[in-house]
């Protein structure tokens, strides 16, 4: 079922190659998204970790803002770390323009600078399954507030770290660095495939 999927990874800056590698390992055809034409025909999009300031700058520089904002409103999208910041609705003390795909307020580097970055094994409940997922929090964003439509899927230290709203999934941490595919499969099964099933044009 995965073989027919096309999932893009925003490849302006950051660890997009790790996500593409993971997609390929699952048999999904992954695509680097650098220009708006790269979004055509995609079933889903991953916005990777990296520097949100840089990504925000390059989104405008390569005239991606409009198409990207439209894409994340009605297609499956997963934002990790900087990707979560880009998909949020409000960012504390920042002039960045997030895309508002999920109703959360975040603080960039909310856990502190690199010396406060950390690794932990997370115990998650995804659907009816309990799983242990290796997770790196690297200069990670902190979720300060969540709107009523947001589902908090996991917390760490009392702060939400994995959340969703509609077709949008966000995580403040990285699992792709550890070649763990649990969350990627969850994203595909619960976000990409259901959204694709609703699109009659994809039924060929």
């Amino acid at each position: 079922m995965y073989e027919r999927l096309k999932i893009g990874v925003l490849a302006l800056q950051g660890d997009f190659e790790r996500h593409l590698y993971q997609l390929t390992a699952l048999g999904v055809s992954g695509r680097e998204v650098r220009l708006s034409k790269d979004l055509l025909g995609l079933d889903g999009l991953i916005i990777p970790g990296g520097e949100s300031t840089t990504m925000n700058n390059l989104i405008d520089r390569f005239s991606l803002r409009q198409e990207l904002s439209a894409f994340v409103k009605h297609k499956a999208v997963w934002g990790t770390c900087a990707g979560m910041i880009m998909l949020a609705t409000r960012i504390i003390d920042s002039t960045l323009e997030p895309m508002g795909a999920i109703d959360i307020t975040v603080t960039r580097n909310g856990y502190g600078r690199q010396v406060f970055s950390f690794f932990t094994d997370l115990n998650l409940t995804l659907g009816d399954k309990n799983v242990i997922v290796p997770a790196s929090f690297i200069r990670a964003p902190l979720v300060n507030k969540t709107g009523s439509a947001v589902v908090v899927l996991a917390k760490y230290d009392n702060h939400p770290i994995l959340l969703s709203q509609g077709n949008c999934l966000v995580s403040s941490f990285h699992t792709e660095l550890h070649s763990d595919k649990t969350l990627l499969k969850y994203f595909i099964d619960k976000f990409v495939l259901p959204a694709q099933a609703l699109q009659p044009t994809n039924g060929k």
Partner: protein
Amino acid sequence: MDFTDKTYKIKVGLAEMLKGGVIMDVINADQAKLAEQSGAAAVMALERVPSDIRADGGVARMSAPEIIEEIKKAVTIPVMAKCRIGHFVEAEILQALEVDFIDESEVLTPADYKYHVDKWKFKVPFVCGCRNLGEALRRIAEGAAMIRTKGEAGTGDVSEAVRHLREINRAIKTLTTMSDEELNGAAKEMSAPLSIVKVVAKLGKLPVPNFAAGGVATPADAALVMKLGAESVFVGSGIFKASNPEKRGRAIVTAVTQFSDPKALADCSRGLGEAMKGQPAAEIPDDKLLQIR
């Protein structure tokens, strides 16, 4: 030496996040802001850019703490800073200042001609320069979370970075074809731990991100090193010694993102004004080269 160590994973993780970006040398908060606006993924704080160190001579050291603090306040992207080779106290100071990455750099005057900093002892990740695979692997064995080519800093001549990248690529390719006995011999020849040599032979690449540095002065230079397999680019004197740093910085960032698209490279290379004048690396006498440090 434990590559499964959790702190080590976090260090390499930040290096992964910097991929596909440009890291710009800055000497003050104003330059840092300009670097961030032009799309830099991180800034590197240092006392003087390499071409000035080359021209002025004297001992080059870590930046003053107040400069690093001002730079940290001025930008939200990661702040790196350079310490002298082997100067673990400068490194401890930089860690206390909470910089995000430390470059144990041959651009500064070495403090220890025999030993590099034991980077396993630090929470902050380190990047180190290299000219060949042996150097890269020795630095990784010491705990470096990122490797960059040395190139010849401050020249505006990209040829040495190209030489180092090609040399590393060639050596890695050779390792992938070797038998176990040959790998033993290669480890011995490179004075590198066999365990890391075996990992590289299996992966066909370094186990940490490999960036390019030294002599990058134009968008085309940046795209060239990306084409040769660099995963990101450090730019030192190339930006702030050019006639229009803002435009050039921006263009080099564009070039790193669009390195495979010659038309985009032509577009971003237009109207940048003068590049830094530079000095051909081949004209520099051996004892004045920074890369041999």
